[in-house]
C-alpha cells in the first residue's frame, strides 16, 4: 500500500507545513539502479592512522572524489570514519566531532560509514571501551540524520585489514543505494581469501544458481528479481497452491518454478535434485518462506502455533541438514535466512512467529560456528516494517504508527530486503558469517 504521507510530505507546501509543525518528514530513499554512481557526491574520509589512508585509497580506486578535510560549502555524498585504531575513549572525540561538522553537508541519501574493531577482541578495558563507544556514537548519528541519509559501521574481526576484500565489499554495499533501508547496523567481517572478480560488475552473481523459497509473492518474489538482476539463475519455490503466481515470477526472472511444500519430508531432496539436473551446482539458498498466524498467547491454539514453527524454522533446520551434506551445494555456498525484528524484540500477538524467527537467529549462529573456515556461510536478514500485502491489511492507524517508528520514518520496500540478501550472496560477503543484518530503517523497536 502506498505511503501517502511520504508522497505528500515530499511536495513543497505540505513539506513546509510538516516542518513548521514538527511532524515527521520521511525522505524518498536513494535506492540502487544499475549504472548509478556509488554515492551522490564526494566522500570525506576522517580518522587517523592506516585505516583512513586505506579507505581513501580504496575509494580513489573506485574513481570516487575523496576529501580528507571538509571544504566549506561543499556537499558530500558520504563520510567514512576510520576508528579502527582507537585505544582510549578520548580518541573518539576528534574524528567524531569532525563528523558532526560534516553531517550538515551530507546530500540527501548520503551515507556515514564507520570502520572499527570489535570490543571483545580488545586487549585492555580502555580499548574495549573506546571500540564499544563507536557503537553508541554511530547508532546515535543514524538517529540524528535526516533526508534519507544513514549511518552504519564495519567491524573488522580477527585482525582483518581495512582493505581486506570483505571490508571493502561491505563498504561498497553500505555506501551504495543497495543499503537504503539498512540503518544503525554493523557488518562484522573477517578476513577471507579474495573472491573472484565478476567478469561483469553489473552482474556480480553471474554463473551462480540460487533457490528462493516462498517466492510466489511479496519479499520472496522481489528477492528472485534482484538475484536475477545481479546475474544469478534463480529457482523459485513455493507451495503448489501458489503455483500460478510462482510461474509468473519464474517467467519474469527467466528461472524455473518448483512447486514444493517446504515442510514435506522430501522437500530438500526434490529441490536439490532439480538444481542438480538443471544447473549442476547450488550456490545460494534463501530461506524466505514464512507464515504468520497471529493471536495473543492467551488465545493461541496448537494449530496456529505448530504451523508457524513448522514452516518458519523446522523446515529450515531440516533443509539445511541435507543442503550441507549435499555435494550439490557449493563449497562456497551461501545460506541466507529470513528472521524478523519480531524475533529480536518480540511483538504483541506474535509469540509463535517471534519464537520461530528468534529460532532462526539461534540456528544461524550455531550453524555459522560449525561452518567457520569452511568457505560456506550462513546469515540472517531481519526485516523490520516492510510494505507488503501483509502490512497493507493492518489497521490504518497501526500501520501509520509503525511506518514512522524508525529513524527513516517510513516502511521499507521488499527490494530493500532483497538487496541485502543479494549482497550477502555475493563474493565479497564471504567474510560475513553468523550475522543478523537488520533491514529496518533503524526501527525503534528492539536493539
Amino acid at each position: 500500500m502506498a505511503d501517502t504521507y511520504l508522497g505528500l510530505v515530499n511536495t513543497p507546501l505540505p513539506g513546509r507545513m510538516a516542518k513548521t509543525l514538527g511532524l515527521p518528514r520521511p525522505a524518498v530513499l536513494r535506492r540502487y539502479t544499475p549504472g548509478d554512481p556509488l554515492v551522490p557526491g564526494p566522500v570525506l574520509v576522517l580518522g587517523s592512522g592506516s585505516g583512513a589512508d586505506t579507505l581513501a585509497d580504496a575509494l580513489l580506486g573506485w574513481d570516487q572524489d575523496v576529501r580528507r578535510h571538509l571544504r566549506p560549502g561543499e556537499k558530500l555524498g558520504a563520510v567514512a570514519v576510520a576508528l579502527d585504531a582507537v585505544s582510549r575513549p578520548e580518541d573518539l572525540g576528534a574524528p567524531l566531532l569532525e563528523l558532526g561538522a560534516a553531517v550538515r553537508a551530507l546530500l540527501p541519501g548520503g551515507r556515514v560509514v564507520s570502520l572499527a574493531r570489535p570490543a571483545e577482541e580488545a586487549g585492555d578495558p580502555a580499548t574495549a571501551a573506546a571500540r564499544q563507544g563507536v557503537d553508541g556514537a554511530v547508532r546515535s548519528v543514524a538517529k540524528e540524520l535526516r533526508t534519507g541519509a544513514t549511518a552504519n559501521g564495519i567491524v573488522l574481526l580477527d585482525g582483518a585489514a581495512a582493505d581486506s576484500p570483505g571490508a571493502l565489499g561491505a563498504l561498497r554495499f553500505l555506501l551504495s543505494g543497495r543499503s537504503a533501508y539498512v540503518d544503525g547496523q554493523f557488518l562484522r567481517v573477517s578476513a577471507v581469501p579474495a573472491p573472484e572478480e565478476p567478469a561483469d560488475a553489473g552482474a556480480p552473481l553471474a554463473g551462480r544458481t540460487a533457490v528462493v523459497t516462498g517466492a510466489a509473492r511479496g519479499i520472496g518474489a522481489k528477492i528472485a528479481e534482484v538475484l536475477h538482476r545481479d546475474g544469478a539463475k534463480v529457482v523459485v519455490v513455493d507451495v503448489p497452491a501458489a503455483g500460478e503466481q510462482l510461474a509468473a515470477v519464474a517467467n519474469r526472472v527467466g528461472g524455473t518454478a518448483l512447486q514444493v511444500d517446504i515442510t514435506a519430508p522430501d522437500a530438500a531432496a526434490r529441490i536439490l535434485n532439480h538444481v542438480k539436473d538443471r544447473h549442476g551446482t547450488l550456490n545460494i539458498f534463501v530461506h524466505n518462506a514464512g507464515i504468520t498466524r497471529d493471536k495473543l498467547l492467551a488465545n493461541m491454539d496448537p494449530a496456529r502455533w505448530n504451523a508457524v514453527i513448522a514452516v518458519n524454522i523446522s523446515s529450515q533446520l531440516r533443509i539445511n541438514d541435507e543442503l550441507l551434506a549435499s555435494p550439490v551445494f557449493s563449497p562456497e555456498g551461501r545460506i541466507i535466512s529470513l528472521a524478523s525484528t519480531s524475533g529480536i524484540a518480540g511483538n504483541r500477538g506474535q509469540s509463535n512467529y517471534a519464537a520461530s524467527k528468534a529460532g532462526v537467529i539461534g540456528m544461524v549462529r550455531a550453524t555459522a560456528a560449525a561452518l567457520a573456515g569452511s568457505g560456506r556461510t550462513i546469515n540472517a536478514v531481519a526485516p523490520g516494517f516492510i510494505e507488503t500485502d501483509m502490512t497493507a491489511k493492518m489497521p490504518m492507524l497501526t500501520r501509520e504508527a509503525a511506518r514512522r517508528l524508525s529513524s527513516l520514518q517510513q516502511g521499507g520496500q521488499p527490494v530493500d530486503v532483497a538487496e541485502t540478501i543479494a549482497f550477502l550472496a555475493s563474493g565479497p560477503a564471504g567474510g560475513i558469517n553468523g550475522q543478523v543484518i537488520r533491514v529496518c530503517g533503524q526501527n525503534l523497536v528492539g536493539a
Partner: protein
Amino acid sequence: MSNQPGAGAGTTVRNAVVIGGNRIPFARSGGAYASSSNKDMLIAALDGLVARFGLQGERIGQVAAGAVLKHSRDFNLTREAVLGSALSAHTPAYDLQQACATGLETVVGLANKIKLGQIDSGIAGGVDSASDAPIVVSEGLRRVLLDLSRARTPKQKLAAVSRLRPRDLAPNAPTTGEPRTGLSMGEHQALTTAAWGITREAQDELAYSSHANLAAAYERGFFEDLMTPYRGLTRDANLRADTSLEKLAKLKPVFGAGLDTPATMTAGNSTPLTDGAAVVLLGSEDYARVNNLPMLANVVDAEAAAVDFVNGQEGLLMAPVYAMPRLLQRNGLHFDDFDFFEIHEAFASTVLSSIAAWESEEFCRTRLGLDGALGKIDRSKLNVNGSSLAAGHPFAATGGRIVASLAKALAEKGSGRGLISVCAAGGQGVVAILEAR
C-alpha cells in the same frame, strides 16, 4: 530404426521423448473458468510449462494445439496463445482439430516431426471451454445479415430485413450431438452399453476407481510437477475424493432411457462438461541433453481408426478398438507387454465396452479379423492415476493430460510401456504407445 542424434531432416529416424507436461486444474463448466476463453487457458497452460522448464524467450520448434468448441475468432488459436505466452514470438504454431483425440494427435504429429529431424522441440496440447462456448445465430438470421451486408439500396435492405421471422432470433446453442445422427454422444454410447450388456454396477465401480485413484495421486503429490493452479483452482473441480459406490448408486440414469434395456449411464459414470487446458513438452534426446531437461518416456508409435457409426454398424466411440490390434501388430506387442493402460473415460461404459470387445473371441474374429480375442487388460494397471470421470474432460485437453501423466508414471517406474486409447466424435479414435527410458 536409427537413434543417431542430430539426424538430418528426412534421412533417419530418431527418438522423440516426452520431457514433461503442464495443465491447469480442470473446472466444471460454468465454474472457476466461466469467464476464461480458450486462449486465456491455453496461455496459462503454456506459461506454466515455460516456468517449469525455464523456456522463457525460447524458440520452440513448433507448437500444435487445438480446441473442439471453437469461436470463429480463434481461427489461429495456438499461434495467438504463443504470442500471449512467455515463449519467443519466433515460435511457429498450428491448430489441429480431431474432436476428443485432438490433444493426442498433436503429440503424435509433433513427435513424428522430431523423429524425422524436422524439429528438435515441440509443445503439443489442447484446450476446451464448455463455459465460453460459441453461440451461433440461426441460419435464417445469418442469411438475412449476409444479404443485408450486400444490399445497396434502401429497397434491397428492406427486402432483406422483411424476410426475418421471430424464430430466426433464437440462437443455436452448441450441443454434443452428432451432425449425421442427431443423437448426443451419451445416447450413442447408451446403444453400445446396451449391446455389450455393461452393468450399472461395473460402470459405477470404474467411476469410483477413477475418483479414488485421482485423489490418491493428489495425496502423494503426483501432480506437483504436472499442474499449475489457475484462477484460484488448485485441483480438478470435478474430483469427489469422498465419493462411494453407495453415492454413485443413488444417481438417476441420464442416457438410454428410451431403450428396452435398463438405463445405466448416470452423471456419476459419465464425464461432465469441463473447462481446461493441457500441454506436453516434446524433444529429441539431444535437445533434452543440451538443455539439461528430463526425459520421461519415448513416444513410440500411434494409430488412428474410424468406424461407420452412421449406419449403426458400430458404436460411435468404438474406433480405438479397431486401431489397437493394428498398433500392437505393427510393434509386435501384446497387452501383457504393458505396465499402464490409459483408456480415456468418456463414459465408464466406453472403457468397459472396449475391454469387453478386446476380450471377445467372436468380436475379434469377425470384426477385427484376428484369430482370437486380442487379450485381457489387467485392471490393476488401468488408469492408475485417475482419468476423465474424476478429472473431467475438456475435450482437446485430455490427450495432453494423459500423455504427461503416463510419461511421469513410466519415469517413476523406470521401465515398461504404456498404452493410450482415446475415442472421439465422428466415430474416430487414436491409440498410442509410450515407453519408459
